[in-house]
């Protein structure tokens, strides 16, 4: 009896949380199909006379252009981040160089530096090299901000890969690069997809840096552009909501398709890392020379 009550209350809490999270989305999507006056009369009602005029106005503006900008920014910066983070993470997990732990500690503490702290210096730097309102500057900044957490998460995951798998590949004569490319990377699909999604979401929604560094109207991202809609359309809610709905679509699509990996990847990187032996890859370099001794050391 009490267990039933407990389960019921748990479900009630979850239901309320879900409703609270979905309500703004509902208002956004429904308002996108309404006219301004019908939105103002009944903001919560279903769009009984759906109209596409909001979408038309949003698309007639520079919206497609902004969309393309964000697509370029997001895809390139995430691709660069994943490549660099995978290589660096593997180095941290496997290569026992001097000062590794210090370096990793430094990297980890970089994770908590809020991006706004870097705003003024980066802007001065951007002006000096004449890269303001260029994609390359923003891509470099995004990559720099995404790298620390990405490297940390991948390094943690790589440490959980069973040592025997790597030994087996090394015994078969695989070079360091081949081990990474054909053993480690295929095993890391889940964390890599997770990282890609987390980073995609972040870059796509990023406002501050895009706002400051992409001042050209033709270089804006949807997030910055829609914020400007507010003044330009003097709060024409359906147009703004149409733009927001369109801007949400790609990221929701990516998330839905990647969800299967997402939960698994989060768990493997963040939580399971503590269960793995911290230094399990400490001295792998000599393994292939003395397979017998390696076996003894494995315990």
């Amino acid at each position, binding site marked *: 009896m009490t267990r039933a009550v407990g389960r019921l209350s748990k479900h009630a809490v979850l239901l309320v949380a879900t409703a609270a999270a979905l309500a703004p989305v509902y208002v956004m999507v429904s308002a996108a199909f309404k006219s301004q006056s019908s939105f103002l009369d009944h903001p919560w009602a279903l769009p009984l006379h759906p109209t596409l005029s909001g979408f038309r106005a949003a698309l007639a503006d520079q919206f497609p252009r902004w969309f393309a900008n964000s697509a370029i920014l997001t895809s390139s910066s995430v691709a660069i981040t994943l490549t660099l983070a995978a290589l660096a993470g593997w180095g941290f997990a496997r290569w026992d160089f001097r000062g590794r*732990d210090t370096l*990793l*500690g430094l990297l*980890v*503490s970089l*994770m*908590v*530096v*809020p*991006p*706004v*702290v*870097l*705003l*003024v*210096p980066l*802007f*001065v730097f951007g002006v000096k090299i004449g890269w303001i309102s260029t994609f390359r500057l923003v891509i470099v900044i995004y990559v720099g901000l995404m790298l620390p*957490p990405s490297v940390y998460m991948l*390094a*943690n995951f790589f*440490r959980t890969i069973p040592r025997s798998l790597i030994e087996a590949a090394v015994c078969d004569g695989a070079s360091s690069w081949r081990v990474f490319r054909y053993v480690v990377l295929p095993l890391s699909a889940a964390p890599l997809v997770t990282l890609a999604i987390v980073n995609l979401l972040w870059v796509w*929604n990023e*406002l*501050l840096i895009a*706002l*400051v560094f992409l001042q050209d109207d033709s270089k804006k991202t949807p*997030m910055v552009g829609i*914020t400007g809609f*507010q*003044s330009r359309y003097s709060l024409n809610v359906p147009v703004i909501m149409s733009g927001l709905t369109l801007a949400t679509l790609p990221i929701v699509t990516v998330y839905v398709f990647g969800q299967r990996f997402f939960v698994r990847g989060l768990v493997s990187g*963040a*939580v399971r*890392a*503590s269960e793995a032996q*911290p230094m399990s890859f400490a001295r792998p370099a000599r393994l292939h020379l003395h397979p017998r001794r390696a076996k003894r050391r494995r315990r």
Partner: protein
Amino acid sequence: MWSGAFYVVVEAITMVSWVFNYVYVMTNGQGGPGDSTLVSELYIYQTAFQYQAPEVAAAAATILFGATLLLIVLFFRVQRRTGLAVE
């Protein structure tokens, strides 16, 4: 478990910097009504790029950086005392 706790701390700090987005969008970049939603990120942004006072913005950014540094140092201290490594 400590790795998990660390993840939560980092995520919380990251979430806090999201507040800028909400405030900027909702208040048209002003932090209104009055200055009641003027968060530190918005303050730095405003002084640097709207009021043309980058030196004030840099000072505010340094204070913010000091605060986060303090948090992370504290976290490492506590962690070392309990004898558990981050990695």
